[in-house]
């Protein structure tokens, strides 16, 4: 698919912070979407409690990173 030249990509617009500045994996759509499909199937079996824990973990991760940056700043 043709890339637009007048719009910067989302990843270009956002400067990487230190924790994400390592090698960025190439966005392989087929692989990523296949993994989401696999995740969709896994969600058939998760309990509400397990699902809440996934959301809580990723929220805590972002809060933790922001708090670390704030303290460093």
């Amino acid at each position, binding site marked *: 698919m043709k890339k637009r030249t007048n719009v910067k*990509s989302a990843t270009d617009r956002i400067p990487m912070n230190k924790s994400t500045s390592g090698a960025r994996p190439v966005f392989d759509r087929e692989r990523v979407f296949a993994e989401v499909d696999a995740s969709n199937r896994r*969600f*058939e079996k998760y309990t*509400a409690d397990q699902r809440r824990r*996934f959301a809580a973990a990723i929220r805590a991760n972002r809060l933790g990173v922001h708090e670390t940056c704030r303290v460093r700043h």
Partner: protein
Amino acid sequence: MRLAALDTKFLLAFAGGESDAEETFEYLRKNGFTLIVTESVLEQLGELTHSCNKTHPAHYYAMYAYWTLPRWGILEPANPYVENGTSGAHAEKIREQGLLPNATRIEAEILVEASCHRCDLLVTFSEPLLNALPGPLNLALMEGGMDAVAVAIASPKMIAERLGGMGEK
């Protein structure tokens, strides 16, 4: 305020700088939509970071997308019907009625949650959602007694075709 919900694949594609996702994002912004993600999408981003190998691009882009939602101006609103499980039960009912052939539980839930948030639009790459008959599906969405509304379901490809059509005029 007009709301549009984004699904997991769309968020990951946008985080990966895919041109169709970026064009869709610009289209939604230009047309005055406020963008949101629902609780099931957040749960799935968390699940991908938990279940995928750390070297897998889905792990990286799930984490990256979640970290950068605020910078993209994408909201993560709470909804009582999602929190108390009513929307999940309604999604299962809609699936049992055969209104979403081949859809997984989470795909149905994302749609019902978007409806509970009173979104006008759900942007998705999900074929089962895109192929569902909109009339009966929207009636079923509104029958749940959750202030839910009819939701237009569109793919980035549909939006690109709209953009192409507008460009020719």
